[in-house]
């Protein structure tokens, strides 16, 4: 059985987020109002906060995961801002302790009497939205491969690294398929490194979630990203189904034209661990 390794402080796993920061990310998402760069940065910040809470115990946040956020646009490198700027893989406890800032945001919650009441929550920020330059996806995947390769050599029996690529799809430094395959060639005793792709399109096209074929995809970029994506491991398929998201035996970790809800859901499913100890 693969993708079943226990994740613990002694046997942590890692996530590498690749964030497209090219100038086209300033376009609005899926025909809506919000800029793709804003939506993606928000989703990653939310996910990092949720991961920190999930791994929090009385003595602090446990290092079940190490996390890197690599931006690619006018440059390829760490997208962390604040105290973690320039860092690649960071233990989750340090992520939790060192956001760039903690914003106060308002949200509406049920008042218990059928209505809604506004309340403020603390929203930590590690990654700011950036939209500047080309889309060097091949270099970004090579950077991910370097981190994955090093991680696997140091954790040969652990849960394999997961790379999540968030992009609007158009690589400008060549066909990314080879670099994507390079990431997935690094294997622990528990399975190969996983690469999932999320295509945030400006087109007002029908979203596609965890497909098992590329026939419904509207363009060559989407089909390339589908072809680069790993099969969803069984536990993630199971979790997707629990969330009401169809995912068959051959479902790939790929989502096209995600709105913010499906983007957050994608990140949640794509980072779902089997068993934290």
């Amino acid at each position, binding site marked *: 059985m693969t993708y079943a390794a226990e994740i613990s402080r002694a046997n942590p796993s890692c996530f590498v987020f690749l964030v497209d920061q090219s100038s086209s990310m300033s376009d609005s998402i899926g025909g809506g109002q919000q800029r793709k760069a804003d939506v993606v940065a928000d989703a990653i910040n939310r996910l990092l906060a949720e991961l920190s*809470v999930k791994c929090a115990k*009385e003595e602090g946040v446990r290092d079940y995961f190490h996390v890197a956020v690599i931006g690619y646009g006018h440059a390829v490198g760490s997208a962390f801002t604040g105290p973690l700027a320039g860092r690649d893989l960071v233990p989750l406890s340090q992520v939790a302790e060192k956001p760039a800032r903690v914003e106060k945001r308002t949200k509406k919650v049920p008042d218990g009497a059928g209505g809604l009441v506004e309340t403020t929550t603390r929203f930590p920020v590690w990654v700011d939205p950036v939209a500047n330059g080309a889309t060097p996806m091949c270099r970004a995947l090579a950077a991910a491969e370097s981190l994955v390769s090093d991680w696997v050599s140091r954790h040969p029996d652990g849960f394999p690294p997961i790379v999540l690529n968030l992009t609007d799809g158009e690589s400008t430094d060549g066909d990314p398929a080879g670099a994507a395959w390079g990431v997935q060639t690094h294997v622990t005793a528990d399975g190969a490194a996983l690469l999932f792709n999320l295509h945030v399109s400006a087109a007002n096209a029908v979203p596609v979630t965890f497909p098992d074929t590329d026939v419904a995809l509207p363009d060559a970029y989407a089909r390339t990203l589908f072809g680069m994506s790993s099969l969803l491991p069984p536990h993630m398929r199971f979790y997707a189904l629990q969330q009401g998201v169809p995912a068959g035996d051959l479902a790939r970790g790929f989502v096209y034209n995600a709105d913010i809800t499906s983007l957050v859901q994608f990140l949640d499913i794509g980072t779902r661990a089997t068993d934290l100890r």
Partner: protein
Amino acid sequence: MVTSSLRVPKQGHTPRECEDAAHVVAVPDGSVLAAVADGASESLLAGEWADLLTRTVTDAARDDDRVLRDADRFAAALVRAGQAWGGWLAEYVAKREAEDRPIAWYEQPKLDRGPHATVLAARFDADPSGVTRWEVAALGDSCLFHTRDDELLRAFPIESAAAFDNTPGLVNAFNRDQELLARHVRAVSGTASGGDGFFLCTDALAAWFLGAAQRGERPWRALAEFTRTGDLDGFTVWLAHARAEGLMRNDDVTVVHVDLG
């Protein structure tokens, strides 16, 4: 009646990080009360909540002998534990402030949701005639096993290793819905005689116990070997082997052994 208990954390964790709890009270009238609780690892302060639950339900059962017979009274005791949690938590937060370690942003959502735990409590009343009457109440998948003459007589509330899953009933510290809790409480009673044994176990050990019994083995022998001697180190080594061989899930483990002698 001799009672002994052992508690071991998950592999890779320190004893302080163990989120199981056990509490045993010998009442002056000769009866014995015992409880185990298993704090959910997704919670914050789950071990402290498990400890408070075991103390509250044994106190309640000592003060009112109907608590372990009546699901509604047991649920009322669980609600009382939750009310006590409110005070405990306020003190904890104040202490953290005083130590200049205020609650961090990543802790607050879990504190707001409250800790969860399973709980099982039992009473053993020995009669001068040699008959011991026992009663037990549980919410969740911590289990009691009754053995006699090297056989398993009774498993409660779960009777098969296959029946364990990842979604046991849990008591949340902020749950004040006594009716809802009562619907999830299971209670049973019986009689025992000299020589019988009882094992109160949290889920990973209970699942191993039932699996071994179903294979025709006698898991109570191995457990009794460690509990009778209080051999925590030996038990820890034995658990490490069982986990490494895939016979037991890597989880906190607690057993209370009540030996009727």
